[in-house]
């Protein structure tokens, strides 16, 4: 009868004891923390630009005065000799409206070979864009150990949807 009443204490005891026995002090199982991945930006890779888009679109978000959604096709790069966790930055600057958007891609892990660089969720917060198209500067940068290499710099045309 009383066994039933003391079951919770027993269960809690079993859980606690097994937790400690499996822990680093006794080491019944080995779950020692894995080393953290290399800090973002530490590492190296050979990155070659395969293709970049020559244009993109600026489409109104559909809300009054709520800006424009920037869509730019992905660029493609080829990554080799990867070690650590270097970064590749895909960046667009539209000087005429003072706008910069960039997405940082981390190459850590299994990102060798052909990789697509996307520009994510960029919204241009301007109430209106008077011109039909804008010229943007497209950059692909590699960033390792606080050091930046420009892999590509070129112009793109951004068409404004009515």
């Amino acid at each position: 009868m009383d066994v039933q009443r003391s079951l919770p204490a027993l269960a809690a005891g079993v859980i606690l004891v097994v937790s400690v026995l499996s822990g680093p002090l006794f080491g019944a199982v080995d779950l020692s923390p894995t080393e953290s991945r290399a800090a973002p930006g530490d590492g190296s890779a050979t990155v070659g630009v395969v293709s970049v888009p020559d244009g993109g679109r600026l489409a109104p978000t559909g809300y009054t005065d709520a800006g424009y959604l920037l869509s730019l096709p992905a660029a493609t790069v080829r990554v080799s000799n990867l070690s650590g966790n270097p970064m590749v930055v895909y960046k667009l600057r539209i000087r005429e409206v003072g706008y910069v958007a960039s997405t940082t891609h981390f190459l850590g892990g299994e990102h060798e070979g052909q990789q697509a660089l996307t520009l994510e969720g960029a919204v241009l917060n301007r109430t209106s864009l008077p011109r039909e198209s804008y010229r943007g500067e497209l950059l692909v940068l590699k960033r390792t150990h606080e050091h930046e290499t420009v892999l590509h710099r070129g112009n793109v045309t951004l068409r404004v949807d009515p």
Partner: protein
Amino acid sequence: MSVTTRAVRPAVHAVGRKLTAHWVRFRTVAFGDRVGYTLFLGSLAFLVCTWRIGVFINDTNTVLNTLVAVERGHLYLETAHYGGLDAPGTHVVDGMVYGRNYGQVFLALPFLVALRAISSIVYPPIAIAAGWSLLLLALSRALGTRFGYPRTAAASGSLVAVLTFGAGVLTASPLATDRFPVVALQASTVVMTAFATVVVYRLASARTTRRAGVAAAVAYVVVLPTGFWASIPKRHALTTGLLLVSLYLLHRARETAHTGNDSLRYRAGAYVPVGMTTWVHAPEGFLLLTAVGAADLLTARSNAPRELVAVAGVLFLSLVPFFLTNYFIAGNPIQPPRFTPPFEGAVTNATAGADGGGDGSGSTASLAGGSILALGTSVLEPVGFLDRFSKGLCVLLKSPDRVVDTFLLSDGFGSDDRNMAILESAPVLGALVGAGVGIRRIGFRQTLTRLWSDRPRTAVDAAVVVYASLSILLYIPSLPLHAQITVRYLLPLYPLALLAVVETAALRSVLADARRTLLWTYAGVVLVGSQLFLAGIVLLNVTHGGAVRIESHLALGIAALLAAWTLGYSLGADSDRSLRTGAVLLGLAAAAGTVFLLVSAWWYFPYGPFALPFVPQP
């Protein structure tokens, strides 16, 4: 416990009794009563199930970098362990880079310290599994006592706890050391949400009935998007929880049973969350101060100097950590880090809303850096707020499309958009339609008189109305927004609306007379409906965005039916059959919320491994 107490001497008995007394006192202060304690355990157990360890939105990287810096004993950021130093929300003062949300970081710090300490004895994945199993055990005991079958509950709870723990040990995989701060930060918001659940219970049951209080608390964690944002460590879970604490203390301060010093203690206590919220995110602290301050001063029995001095003193003390942080960063106690120049980094220029970062969905530097910054260089500069509020008013009046898309029906940003409007993410709020009619039926004037005679209610209602209006005005110029999922900027509105829903006559009759129908509908849809839904979207190869759209259309349909029913009910269609219909609709609406929480945790947003190792990855 019983094994030991039976065998040993009275001295130990005495210690045991003392401990029990301490525990009961603690439980009363923290959770109110046994029911509150049970709700805390239950909501924590549920939230841990949906918890994925990882970074969902890359603003969190900044908070994580800040947490690592603070753990090392300084406020500035040295290196970016998460994302880049230029992640949204970093700021630069005198060449040093600073983070954000320091209040949130200091709240998470004890969790990180505890995790590091525990990890030298128990591996963290095992500790999480063990913690969760013990939680189940405690929950089963609490439920067993509550419903009168303690023995069965104790036995089955023990069995389930040991089995789940065994499954956890067998499936656990190592946790990288760089995940420790992530786990700590997420744990802090999960615990805060579970605690807020208890506050919802206490506030709603103090205002209505205990049953309605329980319903509101359960809804807070398993039905509303507040459950969704629990393990995503943004500021929203915290500021929403703090708002609720403040409202609850305001209610207590006005209760007639508490007079004199007791009342003053609660009254001053209601201002403590103001300082804490300001430390997390200054503009929301200002909103809370305005709402609670206005409601409190207007409805107080006495605004004698003694009382006001006490209130002001407590408010000032609660702001001290905030002032200190600002002083150390900007050299000016009233200039929060967010209002110092943004860190532009080597790469990103934050002139407009673009984010760096590879994982999670994008986020919004536009609000973080741009327009809120325009509020002025200090929270104490009301002109900035007035400007922002008038802008909000402009949007409300001139852009009905944006208002509709924020509150009713989200149009979406692009094809794979996963954002929902408020009603779409919480169809239970459809029940509010009837509330308006209810007021009309009683008569507006009578409602007002009734309000005035019920001081706790008036005070809390006034604070709710002010807070809701100001937060809409503050944020609507930036809404709708990509990467908001469930209009997270307005997260506090969900529990505030919930408080109103549980007061409607319609809901109270359903809870009183058609509980069974409600529960069976809810359980059936959650257990069977969620699986059918998942199977459907997997088999038909629907994109995540598409699935969210289907779900939100269903939710909207249910909300409309529920609204129509509450309308009919408050106009007099209150037969038995009508009540059962209402119970079914309410069950459907609640289930829609839960299905979203489950499917989004499991399917839509796989941003990391589950904290419970045995939950299978899709």
